[in-house]
């Protein structure tokens, strides 16, 4: 127990350090690329006078010393809110109104997490049996087919998968919705928007699942391919291990050998990979969100980078908020997987984890 606690403490410190570094890097990167925060206050047209730029920046608090602004960010974070965003800042009667970040951020986190978690579960559920079938008899027809499929999966960009799946299942066959996220809980139609009386916003578990099926498969297709290849290699290796021979010598059936001795070890490696691929997965989520018109973290961060159409400047508070959340997801996800790993495999405390074997997936993250 003490070993795991020590291990966890080390990981938490490391995670906090990563979080700090990512936020600081973002902050430095923002200020080093000649930003124009004033554009959010005076976004009309391309011609903004230098006075307006300075005045806008002053009103947003962007002319204060950088260190104050940096500290301000952590101060907000320590209080559990993310402050106000610059996008949509309006100047009326010499009073600047800005919207809080939270109400935009929390639904976005929910959408992205839905895609990530569901997609990861689907990828593992499909890849373990496929990898086991392929790995048991390397070179058989089944193995060749699965390997070819995995290769195609690894080499297909998720935006293409998404585009084609929407076209076929959404537009041509009308089986599933074309895009957009439906909440898990059904909400009443908003009042006062002039909507027709019989308008029903989508929502509820069935709509929710329907709206997420295609994104899950799109997301899983890439990772499925990676994990299948890995489990295949792992299974084919461990078939020659001593403990498998021992199990066979004891007279265990082939199915029992696979289920009790080979697959648990292979799954352990997948578990590590899932933890280490969270960063990659968030990158893939960008394209899944784009392909299905979701408004998740990825879309939010791209919007924060480009600013609103009139402003074309980067929304620093929003960017920092998104970056913090993404870094937190990566760190916490890694922590959970590490803990699981430390509980399952007692050697982790001393030995290092296997190196990150990134394949072509790096191309889309």
């Amino acid at each position, binding site marked *: 127990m003490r070993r795991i606690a020590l291990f966890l403490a080390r990981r938490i410190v490391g995670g906090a350090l990563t979080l700090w570094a990512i936020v600081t890097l973002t902050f430095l990167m923002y200020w080093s690329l000649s930003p124009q925060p004033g554009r959010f206050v005076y976004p009309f047209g391309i011609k903004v006078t230098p006075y307006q730029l300075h005045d806008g920046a002053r009103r947003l608090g962007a002319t204060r010393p950088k260190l104050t602004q940096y500290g301000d960010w952590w101060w907000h974070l320590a209080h559990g809110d993310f402050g106000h965003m610059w996008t949509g800042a309006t100047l009326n009667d010499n009073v600047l109104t800005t919207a809080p970040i939270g109400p935009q951020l929390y639904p976005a986190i929910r959408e992205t997490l839905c895609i990530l978690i569901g997609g990861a579960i689907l990828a593992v559920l499909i890849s373990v049996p496929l990898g086991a079938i392929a790995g048991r008899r390397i070179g058989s027809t089944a193995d060749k087919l699965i390997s070819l499929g995995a290769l195609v999966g690894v080499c297909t960009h998720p935006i293409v998968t998404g585009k084609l799946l929407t076209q076929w299942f959404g537009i041509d066959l009308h089986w599933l919705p074309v895009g957009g996220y439906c909440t898990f809980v059904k909400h009443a139609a908003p009042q006062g928007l002039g909507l027709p009386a019989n308008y029903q916003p989508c929502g509820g578990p069935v709509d929710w699942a329907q709206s997420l099926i295609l994104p899950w498969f799109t997301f899983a297709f890439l990772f499925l391919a990676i994990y299948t290849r890995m489990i295949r290699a792992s299974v084919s290796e461990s078939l020659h291990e001593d403990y498998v021979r021992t199990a066979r010598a004891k007279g265990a059936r082939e199915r029992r050998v696979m289920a009790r001795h080979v697959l648990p070890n292979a799954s352990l490696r997948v578990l590590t990979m899932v933890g280490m691929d969270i960063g990659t997965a968030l990158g893939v989520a960008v*394209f899944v969100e*784009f392909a299905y*018109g979701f408004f998740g973290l990825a879309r939010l961060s*791209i919007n924060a*980078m480009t600013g609103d159409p009139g402003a074309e400047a980067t929304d620093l508070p929003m960017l920092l908020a998104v970056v913090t959340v993404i870094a937190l997801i990566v760190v916490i996800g890694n922590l959970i997987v590490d803990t699981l790993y430390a509980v399952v495999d007692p050697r982790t405390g001393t030995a290092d984890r296997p190196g990150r074997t990134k394949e072509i997936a790096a191309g889309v*993250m």
Partner: protein
Amino acid sequence: MTAVELDAPRATQRNAWRLTLGRFLSDRAAVAALVAFAFVLFASFAGGPIVSALVGHNGFDQFPYATNATLDPAGVWSHVPTTRQVRLDEYSNVLPAPKSSPKTLMVLGADGPLGRDEFIRVLDGGKASIEIGVFAVLISALIAVPFGCIAGFYGGVADAVISRLTEWVMAFPLIFFLVYATIHLTPALRPIGWGHDIPAGVPMVALLIGAFTSFYPLRLVRAQLLTLRNAEFVDSARMVGSSGFRIIRKDLLPHLVPTLLVWGAVAVATDMLLEVGLSVIGVGVQASTATWGTLLAQTTGTIYNAGPSFGGGGAGNHHTTWHTIWPTVCILISVVSLNQLSDSLRRAIEPWRRG
């Protein structure tokens, strides 16, 4: 002359590279991948000019009569009037092209409302995409080798700083760094190019992708040098008085070549996919330049030009599924062949390692 000399079997001298080449060429999948990629290379670099010469127009020519009245593009293998002037009646309705107008062949039809030749654009797009992939790999190797060598060979503070930075950057999705950097550097870097051979925007995208992906080869180089720096030949080089720089240059760099080759083949494919991602988001090469990414971006829409997936009715409505499939097939062929090439290279270089 003695009989002994005659009977002695002649020892043929074969160096390691010849052996590797032999192993590589005896691998059927490797040769198939090599042929496939050579074909893609030929089609992308020579295909555009050849087809242009055959059909009489190039990938930039816009034919208003390649689209119908609702701006839907002409289909596969259609003969399109070359008239550039759209005839209108008194109510500004589009009239059909005159019968006497000469026609030109569009092999894969038109690319969208602008009425350009999709086939030539797919071929030209390959040129830009492969250039981006190759340049990016060269740039990231240029960054990774020196820093990786310093981190791996000297260790200490340099290693700690470089490793920590690598870890931090790699913990975060790469695409966000890329998009952010591209948005801010576009005005300065995008105009760089060299005529039609290296379209404007290609050097910028290659530079940024190369810079941000250099962390992977950096780790590879570092890991390799960490194991090699304690080797006996390094000790003996040191004993005869070689400086650290000379040891790296003369003794260690040759050991990196196989690793970098195997990585490079996959990295070209990876970088081509990254370009697709950037173009689909809308921050890569400008939309008028054909790359496989911008061709796909035409059908999906981007953040600047809202297609169906961005909640707008813009660019996407005038495209068919085929406009998604052509570039996808090209990307698939080149990425799969490069992937296989890398796999086969690894197997040829290190035959003792399984898998």
